[in-house]
Structure formats: C-alpha cells, structure tokens
C-alpha cells in the first residue's frame, strides 16, 4: 500500500448493524487521493439516482486525504460527504481539527455509512476495530456535552469525535458536522443526512504512526513551513480571517443586509480587531499547524448581556459576516452568542445567518409579519431576534421550522414575492463573498459542484496585482476583479481544479503550500513520481464525477445561475451601483463548460473528457440526451451490429499479425 494511506476503508451498514473492511488498490488512491475525490467516486458509483437525501439509501462518507495526518501544517484537513439535503445534489464539506489524523491512526482512510439505525447510535473506531454503540443518552445534547460524554464512557480523553448535533437530529437542511466541537464541515447539510440515519457521532482513537516513504524530507518540509509561518504569518495568527470584515467593507464588498448593500455602518463594531480587544480569550489551531487562526471568545455570567461558552470557540470571518453584517447586526456580543449557538447545535453559520437575513428582508417587506415571527420584530439589526431565531431554527420551532428548510424551499412556500430575497445557488445559501466585487467568484458559485461555495473557487482580488502564485498554471497576467473574459474563466478553471485537489489531498488552503511544494510533499509521502499535471487531473476528475452526479439528479445548466439581485446595482459602499452583466455571466459560464470539456449549453460532461480522466464508467451514469433517446430504436440495431464488430476486428488483427 502507498504510504500516507492505511489502505483500508470501513463500511458500516446501520440497518443491519454490519461492519466490513475494504482494501482498494494503490491506483485507486493515486487517482482519487482521498477527501472529495474519494467521496465523489463512491457517491456516484453507489447511490441510486433520485434517492431521498434524508432516507436510508443516502450514504454519509467520512474521508481523509492521503496527506491528512502528515507531520506538516495544514494536514488536519479531511472531508465528509453525502447527497446534500440542502441542494439535492452532490454534497461534501471539509474541516480541519484533529479527527481526520486520528481516524487514520485508528487504521482507516475513510468510513462509508449506509442504511439507518433503528435507535440512535454512535460509531466507535479504534486501532483497526469498529463497533456501533448506543447513543440514546446523547440525543438532544449540545456538542460539547456529547464529546465529554463519549470520552467519559470510553474512558479516554484523547478520543476525537465528529458529530451531527441537535440541528442534524432535527434534520435542519443546513445542519453541519463538527469535529472536536470547534471545527466544522460547514456546507451542504451533511449533518441532516447523518441525523436522519440516527447516527449521532463517529469517535476515533488510534496509535498507528503516519508513514512516509521519505519521512525525513516530510519532516524537513514541515519544519520549514512552521518557520515560514512564525516569521511571516503573525497578522493571520493575530486576527485569523476576522480582520477581513473592515477590508471588505472598505472595498464595498462586505455582504450586508442580505446582499442588498456592500458596506455596513457597523463594520468596525464586529471586526476582528474589536473582537480581539473585547471578547477574545484564546486562539486555537488544527493538527500540526502553528498558525492558530481559530478564535476563542467568552463571556462569563455577569460579564455581559449573554453568557458565551468558550468551549464553542468563536466566529471566524464567515460567521461574523453572516450573523453580523448580513443581518445588519452590529452588536458583537449578539453575533458571538448566535455563533456559539450555531456551534453548540452544529448548524452551518453561513446558511443560518443567510436564512435569518432572508427572513428579515421578508419581514421588512411585509411578506412575514409578527404573526409569523411569534411577535419578534424581525428587522435588520435586531441582535436579540437573531439569537432567538438560531434557537428556533435548531429546534424547528415556529418560523424556525420554515427557515430550517433553507432559503430556497422557504421562499417557495412563501410565494413569488419572497423568491427575490432567497440568495442561493442550487439551494445552497451564498457564502460571505460579494460576486459584484469578485465577478469570477460569482461564476464559480454557479459552476460549483456543491452550490454556492467559496472554498473551491477563486477570489478575484488575489489576481489584480500579482499572479506569481498561479504562474505555474500558465496564468501570467494580472486581471481586474470585475473581468469576466476567457482569461478569467481560464483562471477559474485551473485554480478551482487544484482547489478540488487540495480538498482531496487533505491540506488547508490557508497554509501557503505552493503547487510545487504540494507535488514534492506528495512525492515524499508516497514515493510516486508525480507532477502538477497529475494533481490537477485528480481535481478535474473529482469535479467531473460530481458533475455527472448532479446531471444524473436532473440539475441542469439552468440551475447554474446567480440570483437576480447580482444583476442589479449594489446598494451602497465603494462600488455602489456595480452589477454583473447577465450576458457576460452566461458567456463566462459557457466558456467554463467548454474548457472543462462539457457541453457549452447544457454543461454535460463529454465522454471524451471522462475517458481522458480514466472514469469512462461514469458515462453510463449520465441520463440519455434527447438525441440519444430519439435514436433509441436505430441505436439497438447499431448495438447489434457492434456485437459482431469485435470479431471482425479480431480477424483483421489476426490477418495483420499474420
């Protein structure tokens, strides 16, 4: 088996209580790397089209990458995926923390969970063994209490726990999965798929060592990166991602009041600097990483208007903006409390904030009234109402029950007037990056396999003045953030392919591993004579598998669209009035499809592309095109003829050979 992997995948059938182990070969690991690549392979291969994401036929897959657990910064990363209860399409999400490396130490690269348990259970994976245990006593508990209870029951404080939370139990469609309580596989509602299976948690503990072909070189690279971090990343350590609030506000791209505006008058009050100087009590990290970008905030009883439990960490940029500016809330304590509740109930803070912001705009426009909100004055800016709504969403109480469905479904129920306030792509609420500021990212939202996402996307502002980091991809010239020309699309394609790769390898994108270093690291770990080309193809392979999955689910090019709001001018701020041209956006999307080897109009992957990527089997998963369906009868005749074709070919080959 290649080093870096255990060579074992655990399969757990919750319906039958059966546990088995599979051992894929080295080529499988080399082609898919783990994480997203592995999840996309199994979901496409094993799920029947059209299965209910909240039913027993869905599968939840935890997957480490081949680099997860390597002794280098950023290697805490790992993934969990399923058919998304939020989008109805391909779903996966990544997190850092310590669970991924621990799962590997316990002897497994991935866990595939299928079926549905009759009663709540959790999976206990330890040193090559696995068992299902009763979780009735954990049901309904907050995340920190669940982790503590599992550690106490099994008598080991070193156990790492991934769990679905109260949100997942209640099938909130954007319930996420957390590990170590403060690390979140945020997007796509995978927690709901887990809760629907009656699977409360996966607990892991192991003692195997991570093995590399050239362990000395891996350690050396790890040390060099740690030194680089210590010397150059002080700003990131100090503020993490939270310093971004004022920067985006200054540039006019801070998502504000449900993306109506790009600047928030309360930005400074909720910025990372203010948080550092008021509520911050610590900085947390992931496995082997010296950056410590994770926040820890606290308010003890009597210190403020809310008690904020430090065991739930603290908000990062996405949560600050989603629960802050997006809801017009400038009360940092309320934002931190709302974030703490999201973490305690294991809800995706982005979608939660977006759902509340959607409801606030509906309320301000008379679509929702006090009758619907249970008397809450759900105007933008009401921090108390925000905190209440998070509780109500997690427990599906009152209006919270509707919002727990996500903004797309909620808008369908509220009627056409509400639809224009539902800011999502393919059912997934937008993350906190304004497409009118970063237009390539806007196209990235539409073509993302998981619906709107910022992690496998480009951030156009990075390429306005400098393209040094992407020159190895053939991107040699800078370009404006608003550019939507083919060169921007090329940047989107090439960078995003490699984002899929990094999400398969199990590396954190915040650690500045260059592409060359990623190649070298993979070589040192596995001994493979690999290249940037091979890495890039692995990312493209994952993207294509996920695309075929979505096409099979009937998600067509028409679903790959930005909400109308972004074709209208931004309300305020430094780039007030800026809008995206629908024509240019459509052209850029078609250009991306074409560059991917997909049909320019429909976005359907071509058989040639699937052949090139070595996943020709995936073509059979594509539904028939209209032309194929029409040609059904003649196609049969052709097939009959084709049966004899190999014989002829053989004869002619024989003749030639002879």
């Amino acid at each position, binding site marked *: 088996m290649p080093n870096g992997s255990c060579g074992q995948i655990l399969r757990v059938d919750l319906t039958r209580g059966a546990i088995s182990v599979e051992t894929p070969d080295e080529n499988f690991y080399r082609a898919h790397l783990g994480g997203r690549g592995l999840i996309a392979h199994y979901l496409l291969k094993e799920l029947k089209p059209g299965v209910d994401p909240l039913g027993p036929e869905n599968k939840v897959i935890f997957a480490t990458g081949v680099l997860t657990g390597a002794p280098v910064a950023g290697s805490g990363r790992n993934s969990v995926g399923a058919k998304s209860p939020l989008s109805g399409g391909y779903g996966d999400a990544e997190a850092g923390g310590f669970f991924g490396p621990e799962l590997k130490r316990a002897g497994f690269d991935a866990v595939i969970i299928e079926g549905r348990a009759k009663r709540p259970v959790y999976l206990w994976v330890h040193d090559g063994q696995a068992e299902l245990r009763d979780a009735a006593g954990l049901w309904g508990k907050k995340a920190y209490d669940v982790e503590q209870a599992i550690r106490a029951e099994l008598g080991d404080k070193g156990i790492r726990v991934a769990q679905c939370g109260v949100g997942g139990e209640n099938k909130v469609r954007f319930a996420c999965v957390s590990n170590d309580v403060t690390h979140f596989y945020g997007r796509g509602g995978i927690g709901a798929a887990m809760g629907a299976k009656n699977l409360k948690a996966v607990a892991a503990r192991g003692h195997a060592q991570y093995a590399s072909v050239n362990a000395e070189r891996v350690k050396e690279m790890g040390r060099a990166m740690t030194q680089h971090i210590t010397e*150059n*990343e*002080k*700003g*990131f350590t*100090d503020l993490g*991602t939270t*310093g*971004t609030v*004022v*920067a*985006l506000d*200054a*540039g*006019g791209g801070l998502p504000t009041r449900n993306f109506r505006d790009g600047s928030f008058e309360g930005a400074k009050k909720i910025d990372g600097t203010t948080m550092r100087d008021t509520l911050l009590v610590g900085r947390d990290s992931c496995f082997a990483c010296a950056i410590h970008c994770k926040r820890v905030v606290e308010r003890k009883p009597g210190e403020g208007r809310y008690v904020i439990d430090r065991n739930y960490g603290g908000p*990062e*940029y*996405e949560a600050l*903006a989603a629960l802050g500016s997006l809801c017009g809330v400038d009360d940092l304590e309320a934002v931190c409390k709302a974030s703490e509740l999201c973490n305690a109930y294991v809800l995706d803070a982005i979608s939660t904030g977006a759902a509340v912001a959607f409801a606030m705009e509906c309320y301000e426009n008379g679509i929702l009234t006090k009758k619907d909100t249970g008397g809450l004055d759900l105007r933008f800016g009401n921090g108390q109402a925000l905190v209440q709504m998070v509780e109500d969403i997690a427990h599906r109480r009152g209006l919270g029950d509707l919002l727990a469905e996500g903004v797309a479904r909620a808008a369908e129920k509220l009627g056409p007037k509400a639809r224009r306030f539902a800011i999502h792509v393919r059912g997934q609420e937008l*993350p*906190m*990056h304004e497409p009118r500021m970063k237009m390539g990212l806007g196209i990235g939202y539409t073509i993302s396999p998981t619906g709107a996402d*910022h*992690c496998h*996307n480009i*951030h156009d*502002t*990075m390429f*306005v*003045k*400098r393209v040094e980091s992407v020159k190895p991809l053939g991107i040699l010239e800078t370009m404006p953030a608003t550019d939507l020309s083919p060169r921007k699309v090329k940047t989107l394609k090439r960078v995003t392919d490699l984002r899929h790769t990094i999400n398969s390898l199990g590396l954190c*994108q*915040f650690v500045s591993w260059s592409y060359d270093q990623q190649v070298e690291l993979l070589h040192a770990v596995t001994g493979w004579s690999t290249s940037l080309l091979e890495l890039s193809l692995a990312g493209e392979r994952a993207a294509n598998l996920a695309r075929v999955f979505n096409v099979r689910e009937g998600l067509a090019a028409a679903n790959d669209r930005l909400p109308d709001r972004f074709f209208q001018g931004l309300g305020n701020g*430094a780039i007030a009035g800026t809008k995206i041209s629908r024509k240019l956006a459509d052209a850029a999307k078609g250009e991306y499809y074409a560059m991917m080897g997909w049909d320019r109009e429909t976005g359907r992957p071509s058989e040639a592309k699937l052949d090139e990527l070595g996943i020709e089997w995936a073509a059979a998963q594509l539904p028939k095109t209209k032309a194929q369906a029409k040609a059904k009868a003649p196609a049969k005749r052709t097939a009959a003829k084709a049966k004899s074709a190999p014989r002829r070919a053989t004869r002619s080959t024989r003749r030639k050979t002879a």
Partner: protein
Amino acid sequence: MITISARAHGNLRRHFPGGRDEADFTLPDGSRVVDLLKAIGMPDVEVWMVSVNDLLAKPEQILFDGDRVNIFAPVAGG
C-alpha cells in the same frame, strides 16, 4: 512635516516597525499615498487598496497631517 497614523491589515504588518499593525509615520508636506507606501517600504503589488479617513484613496492622493490611513492586502477566502 505631517504625521500620519497608519494601520496595516492582513500580513502587511510585517512591513511595519516591529511587525505591529499600527504605527505613526512622519513625512514631508505634500506627500501622497504612494510616498507613504514607499517610506514604509511596502511593495505596491502586495497592496490591494488604501483608504484615507475611511474613504478609498488613489495612489496620487495628497495626505494631510493627522490623516488616518488603512492599508489592505488582497482578501481571499474566509
């Protein structure tokens, strides 16, 4: 001479004295934003944008005594 209070965002603080994120800089009268960046030794390609007294500023904008300058690095994911 004029004194400017400047704040460096993101990892730009590594160009500030002692790696701090805030510092005062003294410059000749009539200095522009671009002169401030030069005086700090901050490479233009690392700077996404600059605001003066909370309004976005062009490189040629003239600075005045007491101005508050924010220097931002490009912003990626979060």
